[in-house]
């Protein structure tokens, strides 16, 4: 058995250029995103209602992905990246 030389990394690393993440929202608005879990839309609608009762601006449109088990497609991800408010992404079951 050849046990000399390098050990080969089995873990692929993301190949992506530099990108910027805004950690503080630029706009005073909450944007909700439905991850497709069974109760997530019901919970998000309730969240929307409660936040509005407390005077928080919440975007009416709740975008989502078709199915919880699938990744967000690039087009939707691109749209979300343009949001300037606080983005809340999905809730668990």
């Amino acid at each position, binding site marked *: 058995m050849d046990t000399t030389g390098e*050990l080969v990394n*089995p873990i692929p690393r993301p190949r992506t250029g530099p990108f910027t993440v805004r950690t503080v929202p630029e706009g005073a608005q909450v944007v909700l995103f439905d991850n497709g879990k069974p109760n997530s839309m019901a919970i998000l609608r309730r969240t929307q209602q409660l936040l509005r009762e407390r005077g928080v601006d919440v975007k009416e449109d709740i975008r989502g992905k078709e199915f919880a088990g699938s990744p967000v497609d690039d087009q939707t991800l691109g749209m979300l990246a343009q949001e300037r408010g606080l983005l809340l992404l999905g809730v668990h079951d």
Partner: protein
Amino acid sequence: MAGSGNLTGNHDVLADIERCFESGWSDGLPVVPPYRGLVDDMREAMGWPDGDEIVGAIDAQRLEITADHLAAAAVMSGCMPEYGRVLRPLSELLVDPEFNLSGVEVTTGGVAVMVIVSGPVVAELGFEHEANAVGGANCRVNATIGRYAQMVRLFCGRGGGVLPTHGTMGHPGRLSFLVAEHPDTEWGPFHTQLGLPAEASAVSIMASEGPNSVNNHYGSTAEPILDTIADCLGHSGFTNYYWHFGATIIVVGPAHAETIAATFSRDEARRYLFEHTLRTTDHLAALGRIPPEPREKSKVVPGTLRSPFDHEEQIHFLESGAPGGRFSAIVPGWVGNYFVMPKVID
């Protein structure tokens, strides 16, 4: 987990095993250190001369999975180069975007990759297909190829080590999960249900929950055995009751297979299970097994009987296990992808 680049090697194998642990290059058990020479031999056996060849990608994670990544995982899991003819098509299935490897890894469902091997390759490579065939067969080819599939899931499904997994329960198959079918079956090879020719050898994968045992020792005809399987499939906690999309594999033990096949074809048995695995939708909703606002895709109709399956083709039979006891097992698939995916082994 953190990938930290290629490690420079030394001659102390035990120390290198520890270094793999420290680098996150482990599934929790000791690994064979992926020395360059071993990886090159394995990659050649898998049919990839170039280590930088991109075998698959996870676009959402911006990941490219190379032949070297896969060959390293095969070495680490303890595979032998002789398994390369199985590892190659298995690898191609694992990185197929349809399988959604990252989703399989991070889901709350805590699922594993179930690997199914069927056809002449079972005897050719000496897969255990009798004693403890569904898990814990203590046979190298079963254990290491099953482990390889989980390692690829683990190493490649977490976005390069940056995504957490959310598995709520998990199950032991997340370390290794491979079931080989008997070379001689009552109903024909497993892969013929997936459109492959009977004479082929095949490897198939399904993202799956843990197996459930089905015991029926005293039913002497097909119906009571199928009813028992249907009862196991139809318990109210069965994940698919709401989602409705996942596949399920029934691993039929040889005694049950002989009894059922005496009067039922495989299609008839599938139809029987589909028609006898039912609960009332309203009861499931009252239990909290269906959400208050169900999604249209799940086709929830109040006041009706509900199957956990949208259509009977979601049910598959696999003939495996030891003679003697009268057991079968069900393996529920993950609800996040819909298929058992097969590939021919050359």
